[in-house]
């Protein structure tokens, strides 16, 4: 059981939950995720940890309402309990001093990017942050990123905040301007990570992406999150969730992400009444 200490609505569809999980808070490293199950009938879903407070014994989860489970989670109140929470899972991000590093977050992917970006900054890198979303409501954590980024670029599809366009437009500009970027870390929708990887590939810039695959146990037992990386079957939960963006087969992942779409839509409609 994990107690919800605090829940805050960040935008119409995005919530921050502060959850008591002392051991996970102590052990978590940037890039790692947790699995949770709300109740005895619930599914296990992976969520990345957006922040942690080891002294208070708590972790922050930032959740967008997408399906039944995330709606249910965001409707919980402070004082409610989450039945099961396990982690930290996956391999931590390899953080090292390189020079200028571009961190690119799309939508809810901005949340897991935050501890990674802070890690790179603390390791002595210049962190250029590019954050994008469909509209300003989904553009989260911009103030937190402003606090440590050497440069912060915002984009929205509809132009309601920052520059109108995609994160890749912003990255393209930086690259065209001849900026010496040593590494790119991109977390967001598959289609965004694919576009970033295509942009950096011809320039040979190492690009790390974080996969938010379907999972059940999150410990390597089921193989649901398998993906082919450079010709080898890898499990996002154990070998990832971060992989070399230039080796990821995004088209296969896009297909797999739709496996339960029909079932999930029906479930959600039923849940929302």
């Amino acid at each position, binding site marked *: 059981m994990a107690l919800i200490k605090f829940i805050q609505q960040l935008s119409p569809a995005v919530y921050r939950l502060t959850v008591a999980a002392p051991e*996970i808070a102590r052990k978590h490293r940037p890039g790692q995720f947790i699995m949770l199950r709300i109740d005895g009938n619930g*599914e*296990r879903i992976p969520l990345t940890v957006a922040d942690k407070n080891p002294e208070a014994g708590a972790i922050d989860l930032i959740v967008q309402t997408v399906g039944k489970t995330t709606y249910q989670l965001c409707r919980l109140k402070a004082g409610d309990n989450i039945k099961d929470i396990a*982690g930290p899972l996956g391999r931590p991000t390899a953080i090292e001093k390189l020079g200028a590093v571009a961190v690119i977050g799309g939508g809810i992917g901005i949340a897991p990017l935050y501890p990674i970006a802070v890690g790179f900054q603390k390791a002595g890198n210049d962190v250029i942050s590019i954050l994008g979303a469909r509209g300003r409501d989904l553009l989260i954590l911009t103030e937190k990123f402003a606090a440590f980024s050497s440069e912060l670029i915002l984009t929205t599809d509809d132009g309601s905040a920052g520059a109108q366009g995609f994160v890749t437009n912003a990255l393209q500009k930086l690259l065209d301007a001849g900026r010496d970027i040593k590494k790119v870390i991109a977390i967001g929708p598959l289609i965004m990570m694919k576009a970033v990887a295509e942009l950096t590939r011809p320039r040979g810039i190492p690009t790390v992406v974080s996969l938010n695959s379907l999972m059940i146990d999150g410990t390597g*037992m*089921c*193989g*649901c999150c398998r993906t082919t990386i450079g010709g080898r079957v890898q499990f996002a939960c154990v070998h990832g969730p971060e992989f070399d963006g230039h080796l990821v087969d995004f088209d296969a992942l896009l*297909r797999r992400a*739709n496996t339960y779409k029909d079932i999930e839509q029906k479930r959600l409609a039923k849940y929302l009444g």
Partner: protein
Amino acid sequence: MTEKILRQKKQEQTPQARSRNFEEVSLGYAPERARLEAGRCLQCKNPLCVSGCPVNVKIPQFIRKIKEGDFCGAYAVIREDNYLPAVCGRVCPQETQCEGRCILGRKNEPVAVGDLERFAADWAAANAAAGKRQLASQRAARAQPAAKIAVVGSGPSGLTCAAELNTAGFDVTVFEALHEPGGVLVYGIPEFRLPKNIVRREIDALAAAGVKFELNAVIGKLFTVDELLSGKGFAALYIASGAGFPLFMDIPGEDLNGVYSANEYLTRINLMKACADADTPVLRGRRAAVVGGGNVALDAARSALRLGAEKVYLLYRRSRAEMPARCEEARHAEEEGVEFLFLHNPVKYLGDARGFVQKALVQKMELGAPDTSGRRRPLPVAGSEYELAVDAVIVAVGTQANPLIKDSAPDLETGRSGYIIIDENGKTSKNRVYAGGDITSGAATVILAMGAGKKAARAIGGIL
């Protein structure tokens, strides 16, 4: 001469009824039948059945108690050597163990040792407050303070080790990665073969006897082996994390939607209760193909039927004689309508435009010379490929070692396939760290895993 009594059949749900529900297939013996069956035992002076049992249950003795009508006494005899008789009676491959060595089996059918074991265990659980609970609470007086021991994994091996150590007076904590204890007994083996309330009953009894369970605790991630030994203050560790890391065949199309590992398929259905319409979905294929010939493959095939499939194929690359599954499960699956395609192997899966599996391209095989396993090696027959229309594929070709613990303990020696190396007492290369079950042997049986747990418990007891 007395009239010869034939091996007593236990009651079963009819194939028609059971192939559409998840309730237990076998209903077991009524007391009269159990006593009749027990009467068939010759009570051999040198019982071969006992040597066929990996934990050497005193088989003639417990069978004699059943014959005499002392069912609780029978249960007590089994429990001296086997911590989970209700489980083993249901899932052990008796035909290659105890029953395979029974003298009666040379000319007729062997004594139904497994069914009798199950009968005694179920009877004790249902009727014997005195029998079962007394046993569960037996524990040697604890040394003050009792040494703390950590058991990693709550499958059959971990549970057995925990039970033994608890009885010996140690302070035992079992760490389980999932939200439910039981390991493969709850995520893998389906309800229709091993009802979950039986597993629950054993775990509750252990907890009542003082064993602590820490769920959602992924060792290697939440705590490393060294952290358990130092900061957490455990005097010794028993690692029984299983081999649950599914293998795929590395053929084209294995990442199509609707292609599952057996672990994933069974976990969705059993642990996550997709069969009862819980929140975790599972694709209910109309035409399913299961690849493999072991118990796990049969469990998956029979689950697919129960989820409503009209057609379920079992693709096995060898022939019936080489199938590693329990005879009874193969018989049950066939009765229920699973279609066995022996000497068949998939070479490729084809999908529709949305990425859902539509067809399996299968190849016929023939048997060549024996391979390292002693079984005849299957060889592809050139030009024999044909397409099978399927909308679900379940790959049950085995598992390998899960790397999580090893990754966090580089000084824990493992072999070529990642399995932890142990000596004859279950000790690893690391001081005070023992291991057993599938994480050392590769995928094997429940009873072998239990035997390893028992052996390691004695070794741990010896060093502390």
